[in-house]
């Protein structure tokens, strides 16, 4: 894992409060596991509440994976249930917070992370319902794609996962909140200037330099 990713995860872990039920999307969000405290339960769409990472050297339980397909373990107080109950939990907002990756996020909090027409369309999975119904959706992604293009846009161009669903975006460069007025900068990465950040971002950022945190 790169230092940038570790920075994102360390910052993201502060979003999770005691008693929270947390869903970790495939990819970077799954890396949050070791950062979480013990008084949270991790939900997985395939029907597990109370996921834990598999212990070092433990043999896999072949009946026990998370929604990304990784063999996992469980904590005391875990439960297993069918997929309809799992999504009842999601649709009735019993999952308090979810972390997801993104292809694109925009100033309105619209999210695109499931399809690139003509190039990538493996399916939707649980993303659409998690994005639409979990009260707090935090996006964890690189600020720019591998070609350096901004991922934080004025308006998403790819098919949406859900409209107006994102609460907060945490990238290697910044922490931003979706507000009624647009994207408000909360924290900026150590060593980065506000101008450099603006340069790397398509979306207009609302910036109050007197209240800016570093991470």
């Amino acid at each position: 894992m790169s230092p940038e990713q570790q920075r994102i995860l360390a910052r993201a872990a502060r979003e999770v409060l005691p008693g929270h039920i947390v869903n970790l999307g495939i990819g970077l969000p799954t890396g949050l596991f070791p950062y979480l405290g013990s008084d949270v339960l991790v939900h997985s769409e395939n029907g597990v509440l109370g996921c834990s990472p598999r212990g070092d050297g433990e043999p896999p339980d072949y009946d026990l994976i998370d929604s990304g397909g990784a063999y996992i373990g469980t904590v005391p107080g875990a439960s297993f249930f069918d997929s309809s109950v799992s999504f009842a939990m999601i649709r009735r907002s019993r999952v308090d917070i979810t972390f997801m990756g993104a292809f694109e996020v925009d100033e309105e909090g619209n999210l695109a992370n499931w399809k690139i027409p003509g190039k990538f369309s493996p399916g939707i999975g649980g993303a659409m319902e998690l994005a639409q119904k979990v009260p707090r959706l935090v996006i964890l992604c690189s600020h720019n794609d591998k070609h350096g293009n901004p991922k934080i846009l004025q308006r998403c161009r790819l098919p949406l996962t859900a409209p107006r669903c994102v609460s907060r975006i945490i990238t290697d460069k910044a922490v931003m909140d979706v507000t009624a007025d647009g994207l408000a900068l909360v924290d900026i990465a150590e060593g980065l200037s506000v101008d450099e950040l603006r340069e790397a971002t398509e979306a207009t950022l609302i910036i109050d330099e007197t209240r800016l945190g570093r991470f």
Partner: protein
Amino acid sequence: MTGLADKYTSIEEAIARIPDGATIMVGGFGSPGTPFALLEELLAQGQKDLTLIKNDANEAGIGIGRLIEAGRVSRLIASHIGLNRIAIEQMNTGRMEVDIHPQGLLAEKIRCASAGHYGFLTDIGLETEIASQRQEVECDGRTWAIEPALYADFALVHAEHADRYGNLVYRAAAINFNPLVAMAAKHTIAQSYRVDEPGSLEPEAVHTPCAFISALVQVPVESSEQGWKKHVA
């Protein structure tokens, strides 16, 4: 947000969250599964103008029957109230409004709320008296009745065994509507005869995962005795 085990509380504190005018789902089919202790506390605390959703009206003198007799229920949504003559009397005199649904549709309307949908499309009851009360829609060349989901502010459920996070296991025919109302209401208050540490329940045997539970109280087995003894069968 408080800790995972902090929902384990006193019965007074749990029931005090319910305001006048609340809509409350109640588990149980007849006596089995009825949360008698929670209902007694609700009677004692005095909340009024309640809308109750339960399969039945229990029997005169027990369970929600006691709330009805005390004049605290302005509306009852149920499937069958034939075992409670006082509930029937209040329905006939207009003292209490009663909405009757076929039992399986009542269960589905509650379950539909747990899934977060608006409603479902059914052919049950077409060409009967209940059809006239429902919006209909045409799909694939046939007519279907729209049954809206039933949402509620609170649910009261009775479990046999729980852990401190609020994972619940029910017993025998006391399951009935309990897992459904537990998932459908905004705040679910559970009573359990036994409450143990997390890890004491088989994860596959949990009927209601703790994510759906807002408050959990332990009650003595004797708290159900009143229901058992008066039950007519």
